[in-house]
């Protein structure tokens, strides 16, 4: 068997059509631009004597129509390629494009289901439903959902493992056959080629989506919690606290991001324990936020406080202690107690040694390198969030409903969290989308400089970095992750734009 062609059996028919459509589009675009500079305008509607409106197409309108149909033609060709890839039997007929789109089958199904359901029920879905009235927002949402679904279904989509090495496939071009694939039970092709170590570029890109889409949104969420917890009191109360926090925020903002990353994300800093101290502060703020959120609202309902707020906060505190300090209070207390009862016995020493090596029951085991990456990204993002929140609070606190709450005798935290925050949600949601994109770019930057990431990791940034050394000779390894990162960030930006437009319409 030979290496795959890009477009498989459909190529000979569809490629000329697509090429013609692209040529028509660009020709029409240039002609339209020139006519625009020459002062020609689209035709005005003509009102007929019988009050109907008709158009007489001028040259400008013809170019515009040509552009529109060319875009439709390209989209139709892409759809046929995807369908052909899914429906045709045999990899030869599918080609690389068809093969890739066949691998993405779960994603296509998921996208169709989500879009059909959302458009069907869009009137009942609030702001989310309104997104489907907006083309830009819909495209952005589609791109983001594409990558989220890819991350979810990564093991089914990927053809190989992210670190499976086939030595004979080093730097092989897209569509190459894997030798002895059937015997070893592998997928028979490297759809997008192999990288410098002989790993499958396509599978690494797919698993990279998983890495990026777990860290970026969570880090952004933490940055928001920190920014909101500090920004609300700073904006609402003002005074010394405001001055101090604003100064610190400006300090962090004045720090060039790249310098901060290079100083913070090093093995030596991890060894010195700096990330743990930073995590201790940054992760505590969200817990304070959640406790205050409950307490300010349900202060007069001891039942809720006792049975909901306190257990949740305690559970989060346990998680916090387990994650940041690898410390489990229950184990510590029981071992100390048993050790105390057995003073002088070997049991006591044994208790104390097990205590040190015992993994906490609740707590996410995070390796030091990942923790510092996470902390650094949260640290860089939260001052900006703080500024946005503070600005919004300064604006909202002069509103009548805030004055009404003050007259009712509500406490300051209730007003901040339950009167001001819900009314600031629009801009915050929009900024959240933008910021996930920005965080993705930051994570990519870290990966690009090889900071704090495992070299084996399929993270997009580090894959681009690995590929750039042989870039001019073998361009195929860094290109898929680069395009993936760009499309995800573009999707998030378009989504934010659509959300902003729709929320402004209210």
């Amino acid at each position, binding site marked *: 068997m030979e290496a795959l062609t890009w477009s498989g059996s459909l190529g000979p028919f569809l490629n000329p059509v697509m090429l013609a459509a692209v040529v028509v589009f660009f020709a029409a675009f240039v002609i339209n631009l020139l006519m*625009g500079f020459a002062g020609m305008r689209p035709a005005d509607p003509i009102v007929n004597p019988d009050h109907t409106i008709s158009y007489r197409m001028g040259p400008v309108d013809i170019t515009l129509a040509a552009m529109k149909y060319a875009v439709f033609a390209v989209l139709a060709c892409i759809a046929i390629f995807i369908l052909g890839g899914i429906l045709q039997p045999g990899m030869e007929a599918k080609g690389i494009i068809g093969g890739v789109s066949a691998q993405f089958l779960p994603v296509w199904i998921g996208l169709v289901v989500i879009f059909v359901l959302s458009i069907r029920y869009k009137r009942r879905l609030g702001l989310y439903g309104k997104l489907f009235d907006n083309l*830009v927002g819909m495209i952005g949402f589609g791109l983001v959902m594409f990558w989220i679904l890819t991350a979810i279904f990564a093991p089914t989509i990927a053809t190989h493992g992210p670190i499976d090495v086939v030595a004979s496939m080093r730097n092989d071009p897209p569509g190459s056959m894997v030798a002895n694939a059937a015997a070893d039970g592998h997928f028979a092709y490297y759809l997008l080629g192999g990288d410098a170590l002989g790993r499958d570029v396509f599978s690494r890109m797919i698993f990279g989506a998983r890495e990026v889409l777990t860290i970026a949104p969570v880090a952004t969420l933490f940055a928001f919690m920190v920014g909101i917890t500090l920004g609300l009191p700073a904006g609402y109360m003002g005074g010394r606290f405001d001055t101090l926090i604003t*100064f610190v925020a*400006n*300090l962090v903002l*004045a*720090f*060039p*991001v*790249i*310098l901060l990353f*290079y*100083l*913070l994300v*090093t*093995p*030596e*800093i991890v*060894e*010195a324990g*700096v990330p743990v101290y930073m995590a201790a502060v940054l992760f505590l703020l969200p817990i304070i936020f959640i406790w205050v959120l409950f307490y300010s609202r349900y202060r007069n309902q001891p039942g809720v406080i006792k049975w909901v707020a306190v257990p949740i906060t305690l559970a989060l505190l346990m998680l916090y202690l387990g994650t940041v300090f690898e410390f489990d209070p229950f184990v510590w207390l029981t071992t100390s107690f048993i050790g105390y009862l057995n003073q002088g016995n070997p049991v006591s020493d044994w208790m104390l040694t097990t205590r040190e090596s015992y993994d906490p029951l609740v707590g996410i085991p995070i390796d030091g390198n990942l923790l510092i990456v996470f902390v650094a990204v949260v640290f860089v993002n939260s001052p900006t969030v703080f500024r946005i929140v503070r600005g919004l609070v300064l604006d909202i606190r002069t509103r009548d409903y805030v004055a009404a709450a003050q007259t009712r005798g509500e406490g300051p935290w209730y007003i901040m969290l339950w009167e001001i925050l819900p009314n600031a949600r629009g801009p915050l949601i929009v900024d959240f989308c933008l910021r996930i*994109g920005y965080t993705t*770019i930051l994570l*990519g*930057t870290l990966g*690009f*400089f090889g900071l704090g990431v495992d070299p084996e990791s399929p993270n997009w*940034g580090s894959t*681009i*970095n690995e*590929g*750039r050394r042989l*870039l*001019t*000779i*073998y*361009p*195929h390894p*860094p*290109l898929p992750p*680069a*395009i993936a*990162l*760009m499309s995800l*960030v*573009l999707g*998030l*930006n*378009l989504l934010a*734009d659509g959300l902003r437009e729709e929320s402004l319409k209210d």
Partner: protein
Amino acid sequence: MGLFILRRLGVMLLTALCLTFVVFFLTNLAPNLEKLAKTQGNARMSDAEVTRWLDNRGYSRPLVVRYGEWLGVVPGWTREAPDGAVTGRCIGPADDPAEAPTFCGVLQGDFGYSTVSAEPVSDVVGGRLALTGWLMLYAFALMVPAALAIGILAGMREGSRLDRTLSTFSIASTATPEYVSGVIFIILLASSTAGVSPWLAEMGWIEGRTLFLGSARSAMENITFWNFALPVATIALYGMGYIARMTRASMAEVMTAQYIRTARLKGVSFRNIVLKHALRNALIAPFTVIMLQIPWLLTGVVIVETLFNYNGFGWTLVQAASNNDIELLLSCSIVAVLVVLLTQLISDIGYVYLNPRIRIS
């Protein structure tokens, strides 16, 4: 105004002190110093030898004192070896200990020695800054006019087809970080096996093997279009979108103002409205954005200089950080922090100057 500038300068000084102290603290953490001792001395030193090495070079004293020495407000350390030879912070290998100055720090203009290249830091940073200056200059010369043009064209008729096309372009450009656009540019324009170069070479339209050069190393001596276009375009592209969007927003706001409507009703042509009435007012907001964009470009400069092998300031920063070259890194951070703070100051002053409605006590 004078008081305002004075107060801003005070805050700036305080910020610079805090930031350099943070950098000093992070570079002088115990594991970093141990790494320094092992790279400078012997990789197989025992812990006791490491401590002695650090003692002999004055690294083992309190952090604040050493920060003071580096600043030049605390007298530099001296040490008399058992054989009577005097060494010290301010005493170079060839200097006479008796004549050496007591203070030698940043305030005295002494930025120290780079431990890796064994050259005075000021020499290293100075040359590199000039190289980066050229990169920034060209990037700005490309980015600012392009971004302003896009923003103004998009904002003058909000919601039109032109506006939507240009806005999509600017969103796409903010979504393309330098390490993505740089890689794509190199593949498309500077690769001998992919993109347009093999085709052009086959047609005989270009002399070399590639259209543009994928490495800007030769631009350090001699800048040409072929070796400098890609790095400049890469930096400019990412910053362009943001400025263009801000300009568009500002222009769209101005176009809805009362005086524009008045001009329209008087019968002023659309071209004159845009050029004479709207433009000047619409450019106030982008001015601040452009100034504040400079520090953001620093990250881009570091990425682009690494990607295109251009040994400028960003490249030096990366080298200094990865080798833990403490004094070089400190000077780099001073430069970076000063750039950030100065641009903030200029943007504040410029904003007040450009917009007479704003009065700051």
